[in-house]
């Protein structure tokens, strides 16, 4: 067997790590990559097989063109078999175009393994400056509504004395809307003061706050008719948008009694918990995602999602918090089982607004099985401030989504102002959020800054994240698929899933950020 293919087989397992290392490589410089037909030696999906055969027969450009894709520049260097893996030279930008045209292909950089050499790094703890313990002072932050001045309880207050070092103090407001922070007497001002309400208000960000014993923060109530980033970039859906499309939200559970949400089914896949408990027992996050996709309300009394007629399923993978474990994580077992169950329920799109850590074989296998059964997993790139795309979004068979924002789509002084960062798009008001992860695995972008959506207790909240951008893309994808009945009703196999990904990515419009930030751009 060819040596580069043997390397590819090994590097397919470590490709996420390798790709993380090379994601900031010069995008204009061609790199040698291996095109794998899924995880097998030979193609199984007919569209992938035809594409690879055409590549061998007529060359790469002709193959992409005959598959209906845009012109992709790459050089074919070697091939395992006429319908097997190919070694090509291609730039990062062109590779993304290829992924959009042939979503069934796995693109793995060619890597060369070196002997593992242990290195040592200096890791010295620096002792605090000698001297007497400085005196502390109390600062009371009072959080009230801008309209009427009523106290806001349960708001998280985060006061940074040094934002870059994340030094500071924090707490949660009482029923009186107050929280007492303990700060050194030497501190005269705060670099940043964040206030995150539970719901019903926009968060607040104040810069350069001069310290006094009492600080007042006024929060802006949410107006449900406000045009936020989802409504600006994706538009509120018509009541029939997404009809016939089934969507699974694999998350903290969806608020079953919310007036804007209709949940048609689901399951809790957390080991040891009741499978029938697929409501929001794991937190608010899943309800917020669900509302972005398919909320059916009408402003100003409710909100409207992007594809309100899509059928929503709730798969709860985050456990119920307990006193011993107040923030429990979702296990890969729960997630893989939820993916299986969502596919069995006939879902077309699986929303995964979660991730992190190393690639995991169980989750990858479940995602691959979902693709082979005609379903598409759309996953959040992660919120680690321009870090490499997190797993599972980094997995080739996921559609990875970055978070897009726009100046002016949140009130002045809201926390969302802190998410503005370059590069800016062709329209200078557009930006990829400062928290969004980026890299060559990004397939597309979606609105994810200052998003109004549904949360439990019949309430509404603002959230930001690639977690919000992902359901926005799922909503757009559902709307699109509902209009392509042949594809919607096609046999549920890998070719159907590839066709759906192709449809979504080829609908996307670039906004001028560059491929690492936006992939193919914003789906239409």
């Amino acid at each position: 067997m060819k040596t580069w293919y043997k390397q590819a087989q090994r590097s397919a397992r470590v490709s996420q790590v390798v790709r993380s290392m090379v994601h900031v490589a010069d995008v204009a410089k061609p790199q040698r990559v291996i095109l794998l037909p899924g995880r097998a030696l030979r193609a199984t999906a007919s569209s992938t097989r035809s594409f690879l055969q055409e590549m061998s027969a007529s060359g790469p450009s002709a193959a992409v063109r005959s598959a209906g894709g845009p012109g992709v520049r790459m050089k074919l260097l070697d091939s395992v078999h006429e319908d097997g893996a190919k070694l090509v030279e291609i730039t990062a930008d062109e590779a993304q175009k290829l992924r959009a045209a042939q979503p069934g292909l796995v693109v793995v950089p060619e890597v060369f393994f070196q002997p593992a050499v242990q290195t040592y790094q200096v890791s010295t703890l620096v002792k605090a400056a000698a001297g007497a313990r400085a005196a502390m002072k109390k600062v009371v932050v009072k959080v009230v509504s801008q309209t009427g001045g009523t106290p806001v309880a349960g708001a998280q207050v985060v006061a940074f004395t040094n934002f870059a070092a994340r030094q500071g103090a924090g707490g949660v407001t009482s029923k009186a809307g107050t929280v007492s922070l303990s700060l050194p007497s030497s501190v005269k001002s705060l670099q940043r003061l964040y206030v995150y309400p539970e719901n019903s208000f926009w968060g607040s960000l104040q810069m350069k706050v001069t310290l006094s014993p009492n600080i007042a923060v006024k929060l802006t109530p949410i107006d449900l008719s406000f045009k936020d980033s989802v409504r600006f970039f994706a538009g509120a859906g018509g009541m029939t948008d997404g009809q016939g499309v089934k969507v699974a939200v694999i998350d903290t559970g969806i608020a079953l009694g919310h007036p804007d949400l209709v949940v048609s089914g689901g399951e809790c896949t957390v080991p040891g918990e009741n499978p029938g408990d697929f409501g929001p027992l794991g937190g608010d996050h899943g309800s917020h995602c669900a509302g972005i996709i398919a909320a059916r309300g009408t402003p100003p009394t409710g909100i409207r999602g992007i594809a309100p007629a899509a059928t929503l399923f709730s798969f709860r993978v985050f456990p119920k918090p307990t006193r011993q474990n107040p923030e429990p994580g979702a296990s890969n077992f729960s997630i893989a089982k939820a993916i299986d169950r969502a596919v069995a329920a006939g879902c077309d799109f699986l929303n995964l607004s979660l991730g992190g850590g190393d690639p995991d074989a169980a989750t990858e296998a479940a995602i691959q099985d979902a693709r082979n059964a005609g379903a598409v997993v759309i996953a959040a790139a992660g919120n680690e401030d321009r870090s490499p795309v997190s797993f599972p979004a980094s997995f080739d068979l996921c559609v990875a989504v970055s978070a897009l924002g726009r100046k002016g789509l949140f009130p002045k002084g809201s926390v969302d102002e802190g998410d503005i960062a370059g590069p800016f798009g062709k329209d200078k008001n557009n930006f990829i959020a400062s928290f969004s992860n980026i890299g060559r695995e990004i397939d597309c972008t979606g609105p994810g800054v200052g998003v109004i959506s549904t949360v439990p207790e019949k309430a509404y909240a603002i959230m930001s994240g690639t977690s919000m951008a992902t359901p926005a893309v799922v909503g757009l994808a559902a709307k699109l698929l509902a209009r392509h009945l042949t594809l919607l009703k096609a046999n549920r196999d890998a070719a159907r899933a590839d066709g759906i990904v192709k449809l979504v990515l080829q609908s996307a419009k670039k906004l001028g950020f560059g491929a690492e930030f936006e992939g193919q751009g914003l789906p239409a």
Partner: protein
Amino acid sequence: MRRFILRYRGEGARPQDAVEKIRAIGGAAVLEDSDRMMLVEAPEQELRQALGSETDWIIAPEVTYEVPDTRKKVRKPPSKRK
């Protein structure tokens, strides 16, 4: 003892003899069992030995993911030096 996910990737229903091999591992506990997967608490080496000849099974350690959040967090108390 660590928890592992066993996922069957072969065609058709998972083979019962492989499942019996896992259940027969001393000290192993099957915590959850779904169509294609099992969540098992067992010594890793014995688990891998039991499924050594079964190429259609994936063994992956259980890992967890936190609820994503973009809220800024304090990592350190404020410095007392100004």
